[in-house]
Structures are given as C-alpha cells and as structure tokens.
C-alpha cells in the first residue's frame, strides 16, 4: 500500500461496540496509543528507548511488535531534533506522538516547541498536529531532574495546548483528543499515578474534549481546583471534610491551556471560596492564572481569599523528608481547606 492509498485517510478501524475495562493510568495511556495507531495509520510514536525497550516506564511496551519500527521509532538521544523531526513529519501528513523520557527533558527541546511549533499556524497557516507526552511530577524520590512539573512554561506560551489527565479515563480520552487536535499539544502524564491509580476506561471513541474541566465532586462551601496527581489528593481531603459535615466541590481542570474559564468561574461563583492546588512551583504557576481569573471575573462572589497550595519555589528535593515537605498532598490540602472554611 502506498501512502496515498491509505495513510492520509483517517480510518476508524476499531469503532465496534463500546465496553469499558479497568485499567491503570499507565495502561490507559498505552491503550490510547494503540487505539489511535490502529485507527489511523498517520499516527506514529517516537522517543528514546520507546521501541525495543518499551520506554523507561514501559508505557509503549508491545507497540513496536504490533506496529513495526517505522511507526514506533527509537531515536537518538536528542530532544531538540526529535521535536523538530515530529514537526517536519507532521508537514508530511503524520500525526507524531513524541515521548519525553521525563518531562524534565522537555527543556532540551524547548526551542522547537515554543518558537516553531507554537507559532507556525499563526505565521503561515500550516498546522502542527504533534503531541508531546511529558511524564511529570514527583513523589518518587527522583530528585530535581526526574520530578519536574514544568507545564507553566507552555501554558504561558501562545499557540500551544496543554492537558494533564488525573484519571485513567481522561488519560485515555485526552490522549485521543491530543493526537487528533491540529495543534501542538503537550500531554502531561503523572508518573506517580502510572501504577497506583486504576479506573474504568471506556473502549473506542471515548474522547475527553480539550478545554473542558470536570466537576469530580459537587459541593457548596468550598471549591478545590486541581489537576494531575493533586486531584486524587483533593478528593481524599474532600471526603475527609465531608465526614466532618462540610460540602466541598472538586474541579479537575484537565486542560491547562486553554483553561475552561466557564467552569472555573462557575465553581468560584457557586461556593465563594476557592483553594487551588498544584504540584508545580507556586510563582507564575497555573494556580496564579486561575486565581487571577477568578479575582478579575468572579470578584463579587468571593467570601474568602483565593488560596493557593503549591510546591514552594525550590527545585524538587530528593531526600524523603524534604520531598514530603515540598509536595502538596491530602493532609496539606485538608489543613488549607479548613483554614479557608473557617474564614
């Protein structure tokens, strides 16, 4: 088969009837890659050690056997050329999914993302439909260079989309959407959840739309706005508070750029008290944007200070007592929420 006969067409091979299955967060990512690769021959994956080895975290395990080395490309160790290569491939009609071995190494390919991919459509109307998978976050004692949550760099940069699934279903559904989106999408997956979080994941066309947050838990007194690994922590804290008689809403942002402003403002207006939580460093993080948005557009509805709980402005430390002090978790959310409830 030549490219013209088949590859340019998106072929929905796998529609079938929709069931669901229980998958880990990691399995959900792999399932999404497989589904998209089966469905559309333009989709390919590439990265360091992702083929024969199956990836540093084994996310892509089995893909090279199923799809061959033309579509599962083990690359030289070179993030900048890799992202540029993905951009160039997209100009030839491919839909490349690039794996950064760790989100931390995305800075090595930075120019290709923020200067080229982000601006291209704006400049000469040529879309850059690439997806960059960035395994981020800490809690694994991996130190300053294997634990970063650096999404704010890209949330600030015009022309990119940024997503951060918190559940297996969204890990699946957002990856489908990211791959099909005509824009460069950075997909922050949370290493901490890879094997620790399981959930029901629909089969087939279960896309999570980019740009839509999800209310994970409805409540009246206080809104916790979180994303990625912090959503589970927020839910634990909210459950605990419920036992103490409080009614807490938890909003999972899911997409960090473009933000679901309507959902953010709706929850803020509903409860009047907002606690924003993320694992990334505090200053100029996504939480700052969410807070600013609320302060500007839901000002009259507020019954307390917009509160942020984020990592302090230090690199991610290695030693367990330091990392535990560094990283937000359910207990810290609980304390911050209690304080805000008491305001």
């Amino acid at each position, binding site marked *: 088969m030549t490219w013209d006969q088949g590859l340019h067409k998106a072929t929905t091979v796998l529609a079938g009837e929709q069931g669901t299955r229980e998958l880990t967060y990691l399995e959900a990512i792999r399932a999404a890659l497989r589904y998209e690769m089966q469905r559309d021959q333009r989709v390919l994956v590439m990265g360091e050690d992702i083929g024969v080895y199956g990836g540093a975290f084994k996310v892509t395990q089995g893909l090279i056997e199923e799809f061959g080395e033309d579509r599962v490309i083990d690359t*030289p160790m*070179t993030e*900048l*050329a*890799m992202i540029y290569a993905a951009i160039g491939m997209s100009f*030839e*009609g491919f839909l490349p999914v690039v794996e950064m071995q760790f989100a931390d190494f995305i800075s090595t390919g930075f120019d290709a993302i923020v200067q080229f991919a982000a601006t*291209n459509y704006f400049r*000469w109307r040529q879309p850059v439909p690439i997806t960059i998978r960035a395994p981020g976050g800490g809690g694994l004692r991996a130190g300053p260079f294997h634990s970063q949550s650096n999404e704010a760099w890209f949330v600030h940069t015009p022309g990119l989309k940024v997503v951060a699934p918190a559940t297996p279903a969204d890990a699946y559904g957002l990856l489908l959407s990211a791959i099909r989106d005509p824009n460069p999408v950075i997909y922050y997956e949370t290493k901490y959840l890879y094997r620790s979080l399981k959930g029901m994941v629909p089969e087939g066309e279960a896309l999570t739309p980019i740009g839509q947050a999800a209310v994970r838990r409805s409540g009246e007194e206080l809104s916790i706005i979180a994303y990625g690994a912090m959503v589970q922590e927020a839910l634990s804290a909210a459950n605990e508070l419920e036992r103490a008689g409080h009614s807490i809403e938890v909003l999972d942002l899911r997409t960090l750029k473009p933000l679901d402003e309507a959902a953010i403002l709706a929850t803020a207006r509903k409860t009047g008290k907002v606690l924003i939580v993320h694992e990334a460093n505090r200053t100029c993080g996504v939480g700052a944007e969410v807070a600013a948005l609320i302060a500007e557009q839901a000002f009259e509805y507020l019954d307390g200070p917009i509160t942020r709980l984020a990592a302090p402005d230090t690199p991610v430390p290695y030693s367990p007592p330091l990392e535990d002090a560094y990283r937000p978790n359910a207990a810290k959310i609980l304390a911050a929420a209690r304080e805000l409830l008491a305001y």
Partner: protein
Amino acid sequence: MNEIDDELLQQAHYWMRLTRALDDRGTFLHKQSKIVGGYFSQIGHEALSVAAALSLGPKDIIAPMHRDLGAYLVRGLTPRRILAQWLGRETGVTRGRDANLHGMGDLSLGIIGFISHLPASTGVITGVAHGIKLKGEPRVAMCFFGDGSASQGLAHEAMNWASVFKLPMVIICENNQYAYSTPLSRQMAIEHIAQRAAGYNMPGVIVDGNDFAAVYHATKEAVERARSGGGPTFIECKTMRMRGHAIHDNMAYVPKELLAEWEARDPIARIEAELRARGLLDDAKLAALLARIEAELDEAQAFAEASPYPDPATLTDGVYA
C-alpha cells in the same frame, strides 16, 4: 558551465536577475520606510539559491532561510505575495503576522517558512525527509543554513539524525564568510565546514557558491543520491554576503579587499559572461530582460501597496488551527 544546457542557463539567469532586482527593491522600499523593522539583503547568494532550487522537482520540499530569496522565487512564491509580506499586508505570505522574510512558508509550493531561531531549517527538514522516507516516496527534502548557524547544536543533531535514518535530504551550507559581524575564524577552527560531514558518514562537498553550474551539478547529484535511497549529502557553498547583515549594518568590519575579491566573482556577472560567450545574451537582450523584470516588480509592488493591512479585529483568530 559546459554541461548546463542553454535553456536551463537562460532560465537560471532570469531567476537570478529577478532575485537581485527584488532584493534591490526591498532595500529601496526599506529606505522609503515602507518596509518597517528590518530587511535582509541576499546580494551574492543568487547563484546558489537558484541553482539548489532548480535541482529539485515540483514535489520536493525546501526549508530556506533569510538569504534564499532565489529559492523562494524558483519554487513559485510570487513577487506579489513577497512584497505584500514585506509591507505587512493581509495579502502577504503571513498576512502581516511574520516579519520581512520570516515565515514565508507555503507547503503547496513545497516551502517551509523559517523562524529566526537558526538553524530551525535543519531540524524541521529532517522530519520532512523522515516522513518522505516512511511513505516511500521518491521525493527529496533540502535545507539551507549558514556558517554562523553551523555552530548551533541543532545543526549537529539534525545531521546526525539524517545520517542515522539515511534520509533523502540535501543540506546546503551557505558559507558567506560572516555571521552578522562574526568572521569564520571566530566561528570555527576548521577551514571548510564540509569537513564535518565525515562525522555523520555523509559526503561533504565543497563548491564555489557563486558559480551557478558548480552548485547546480553538486546539488543535482546530491538530489539524485537522496532520491535513490543514498542518504543525505552536505554541500558547502562558498560565497560572500555582499551587504551588511541587515540593512542598518554598514559592515565596517569587512575588509575592503575581501569585498573587492568577491565583487569580482559576482554570480550574475559570471552567468552573464557565459551567456554572452554562448551568444545567448547581448546588451539589448539584457536591457529587455531587466525591463521585463522591473515591470513585473512594479506591478507586484502596486498590488502590495494597494493591499489592505490586516484587520486588527482578527488578531487572535489565527493562533489555533
């Protein structure tokens, strides 16, 4: 230039003259403050950009940079769209979004619009070549980059990638002696940039970049190698940037003798000498050609100047596809 047939030589002559005339017009329009911001002249690069582009077929792809006006024109980007681009008009290649020669991309013509961050052309073309190879199509991807850009890590990564995957790619290195004010001696410790090709197991060819025929032969051979599965080739074209880095730069740092030496090797003078030797050109024919080109550019400029500026209301429209 013996092996170049008359027709190709005449064709090349037209493109080189058009390139220079359009470039001169750019300078002129900048002096008139019609082009705001910067302007980058390519005077001296006509032979290499036109020859490299002419060695390609219509479905091949190029990633040029800021001194490859000749290549844009040969690939079919019209003076109308280019002038409208320079004047920041909605009818320009980037609809007033990108500046001067930046971003002049149009995949329907096989042209990738460059970004400032040099040498992005080498990176992105690697991906295009990789895509072509995966599709198994007999097409070629060509990029251009400069002697200064050769110091950037990306050039290395791209050449390495192209060689590991044996991609159908041709790398044109425009060694024009300077990167802004920086001379070669401050940019590298080697005499020929092509010496680096061995580090990627690819042929490293050195040609006189001001000799149309020499560049054409070298690029043609490299294009054929790429097309037939032989992998990438690195071609260093020795030339000279005959103007300042950008229009504001009086290039006081360039020794007069060096300029004079290259003035004597002017690519257009050389192709015209050959055409005259073959009896294909005389003063009258040249005058007619130049008049035709000026008329073409007058018309294009009129189009550009009559074109509207982009509507500010559309500012945020085009960020996402």
